């Protein structure tokens, strides 16, 4: 079972705020605990900003998912930017090619339950994260 997906085009800082609001309302609707809500919203904020800053903009898709035993929220961040050449380096705490703290990508992975990344230089980046209800 899965509901309709909400899609937001990420083109500016305002869109990152919209992503955050959408994820928060969806998380509240899915009855995630306050801690999990905050973790998911923060992860979405990091990844949406990466989509904007490093991917040159893209889309964020938020959908509620469920399997036999549990339900949760899945978010897909997709861009057609330059992609990531060295994943291991990108996931190193404190490494950044921009001006941030270098914790967004690795931190976001620690904030969610499932984290998949599909990227290659020149092909763009697609990240799928899932947070399950406890």
């Amino acid at each position, binding site marked *: 079972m899965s509901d309709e997906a909400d899609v937001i085009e990420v083109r500016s*800082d305002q869109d990152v*705020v919209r992503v*955050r609001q959408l994820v*928060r309302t969806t998380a509240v609707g899915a009855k995630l605990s*306050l*801690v999990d*809500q*905050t*973790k998911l*919203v*923060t992860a979405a*904020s*990091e990844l949406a*900003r990466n989509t904007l800053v490093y991917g040159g903009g893209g889309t964020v898709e938020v959908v509620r998912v469920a399997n036999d035993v549990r339900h949760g929220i899945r978010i897909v961040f997709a861009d057609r930017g330059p992609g990531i050449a060295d994943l291991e380096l990108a996931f190193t*705490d404190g490494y950044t090619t921009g001006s*941030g*703290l270098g*914790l*967004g990508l*690795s*931190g*976001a992975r*620690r*904030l969610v339950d499932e984290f998949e990344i599909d990227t290659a230089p020149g092909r763009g980046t697609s990240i799928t994260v899932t947070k399950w209800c406890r």
Partner: protein
Amino acid sequence: MALSADEASRFATLLEENRDELVASWTDRVAATLRGRLSHAELERQHGELGKGLHAALSGGGRLLTDEQSAELRAQLSELSSSRARQGFSATETAVSVFALKDAVFGILDRVGGDAILRDYVAFTSFVDDAALFTFDSYVRVRESLIADQAEQLLELSTPVVKLWEGVVAVPLVGTLDSARAQVVMERLLQTLVDTSSPYAIIDITGVPAVDTQVAQHILKTVVAARLMGADCIISGIRPQIAQTIVALGIEFGDIATKASLADALRYVLSKSNGR
């Protein structure tokens, strides 16, 4: 479509000869759409002046609203839109004020009669349409500038720096902390530190719904800047869910004092300042 010189002068004469009747009929129509939110006398005054402006433009040889002779009329229309926009009237209500002139003119043409009524009316109508579109444009411009002003005021309002105690200032942050706001917060905090010569500053993030790396980076920069000026910074309002998120993200606040509530932070500061 431009008015011919002939049409323009005929209309100027028509406006001149029937001024009172025209203004009265125009005012009645507009008053009905505004439902008493502007007084009849006020509308009559505005329409009287617009009528004069229109007459001046047409008799002066203006054939299009963009002509030099219509400059005075354009200024009047801008003024009308700007006052309507500020009084909270909708764009439609503002444009209708101009469109209603067509009906008023038609009433008079119908009574006066003549061979070329229809042709004259159509030509004049397109002039009024231009005027209404112009009004609409200026209305939108005024509203946009109002919104920009308010956004700026909001930015100022949403970042107060308050004196909490002798030597202690606090910045309660509420909502999203983007780069623009972070900049305003930092400037205000540093200026207040100088003005009050306070040795302590408390940054309260109770009202910030999520602390991601960007927000953390902004706060850290503000703390470092305050320290350079000799002030000690305490971050308060770290709720359980924020604390867990910060740990998972891997953000380190180093040796910066952090407290769960603003009260804790104030107690901490007071005990520190009493101790020396």
